[in-house]
């Protein structure tokens, strides 16, 4: 065991984490932008089976909202089902 905080690496510096976070946000914006290209039929043709699939940003919104909803509901679930670690011990 080493004292937490010793042995600093790249990811231990908050400014680096913020930098990664920014790059990731920019990458997301780029991928969303490609979606917009399809709207104006530039570079590639978007073929979809379902109407909603063709809506700009549908997948992005579904992904983002899906995760937020999932985590929100899971936290609710935790209130019902969470028990101490030794709950079943002695049974």
């Amino acid at each position, binding site marked *: 065991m080493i004292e937490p905080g010793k042995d600093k690496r790249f990811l231990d510096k908050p400014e680096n984490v913020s930098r990664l976070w920014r790059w990731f946000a920019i990458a997301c914006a780029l991928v969303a932008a490609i979606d917009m290209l399809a709207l104006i039929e530039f570079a590639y043709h*978007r073929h979809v089976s379902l109407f909603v699939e063709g809506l700009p940003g549908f997948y992005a919104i579904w992904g983002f909202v899906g995760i937020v909803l*999932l985590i929100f509901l*899971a936290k609710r679930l935790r209130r019902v*089902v969470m028990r101490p670690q030794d709950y079943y011990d002695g049974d």
Partner: protein
Amino acid sequence: MATDIPPFVPFLGAAIVVALTSGLLRKVVMLATPLISFVMLAQLEPGTLLEMQILGFTLTPLRVDRLSLLFGYLFHIGALIGIVYSLHVKDSLQHVTALIYAGAALGAVFAGDLISFFLAWELLTLSSVFLIWARRTPGALAAGFRYLLFQLVSGVMLLAGIIVYVHGTSKLGLDYIGLDAPGGMLIMLALGLKCGFPLLHMWLTDAYPEATPTGTVFLCMFTTKVAIYALTRTFPGAEPLIYIGTAMTCFPIFFAVIENDLRRVLSYSMINQLGFMVCGIGLGSALALNGAVSHAFNDVLFKGLLFMAMGGVLTMTGTTRASELGGLYKTMPQTTVLCIIGAASISAIPLFSAFVSKSMVMQAALDEGHVLVWFFLLFASVGVLEHAGIKIPFFAFFAHDSGIRTQEPPLNMRLAMLTAAALSMAIGIWPSLLYGLLPFDATYHPYDMTHVVTQLQLLMFGGLAVFWMMRTGAYPAEERAINLDGDWLYRRLVPHSIRTIGAGLTPVGTRMRDAVMGQVGSLLDFLERHHGPAGILARTWPTGSMAIWVAVLLAVFVAAYYI
């Protein structure tokens, strides 16, 4: 042909040899088994049948077609990876039972009739439970018994279903059965139990995280995939499977978000992945069935890889609880990278394996007009990213620095992980490697611009949401706690109810006992009066009186004779 040997034979034979040998020789035998057996398998032509007459039944221990071959190849690859991964373990019990277990899985997949299949099904149960017990902790022992109980129930249901089916149809082949056939429902439930149908799934999330680090790798590869294989054969296109499968993809992801034990997170994730396969089988089109079996193929590799990564963490640090881990990338960089490849594969990131298999099921759902199902599957896909794609590698290797300083797991473990990672990426990059083996006639092209862009959007914005919630503190913290699931019913509710009812019945019982004991007491008094030392029947009578009575009897007899 001399090579028409069912593939389970080399494995069961090797199990005996491994039990009798040790050291280097044992390792050589263990490694050679899947390799030699694979070479023999590669020579089998589709259409090969091996039949034998036993007790008036025609058994088919070897039936080779494209479906059984696909799973045959898969289980050989899985067995080889599992064996390499467990090579450093010095425990005969685990090595022997793992080989029997792999042999049983191959026996089931190549069985052409229901009796052979049932025998393999039971052998799967009996061999696999030892991989849980081999952990040799009280928790593992208890979980193993609960696991065994569930698996035996599955076996009994299967046997009952087979008896009804064979009696009703006079067919013995392991072919299409369908829900309308006599016994069909029983057979489906038996298969469903082993692939984690909702409310029959508890054995999986209960027992798999309790097995040994190496045992769980074998467990995650065989039992559930044999069930998927059998469902594909017997119930393709059964509509209830669509909805059961969809439920399986969705409910475990909520538990996976809040679960602390990372191997249990993977177990929930496993039910979620099996859900996609079950849903594909229910959809029943050629594309959907190809999606189901190819996803089973990929799942063995990437779920195996993730369980191996967590097994490595468990071996080196003694825990897989997210609340205790973090920062391991500093001392386990190779394991970290391999784990991330597994996480990327299961998340269906383009160029990784699930991208080319799960999407077939999704597309088939749309093609068959199940739009609502498709929305749920899409939601579950983002859920996979959250718990398997981000949570597993993040909490084990990054998150806050736990201060644990360890080292990489043994070389053989890393080699096994590397093999699984390489295969997952190879299938993702060159899907034709896998598509060429698929048994059903459907074409699918995963790599078109629309699919890649939409999938990237889905996953990146899902990831954005996760990291955003982590940064703002909305993400649920790792808690040193467990979560109740269906196993609460039989681990807490039923035993406690019995105890409570027992306690309630005690006064009644006491009164009843008092009443009965009072009756017994008066009976004893009665007997005492007549048979006791002073009782009339226990009195000692002089011998003389006996002689008088005999004389009287004689006199009466003589008198009667003369009259």
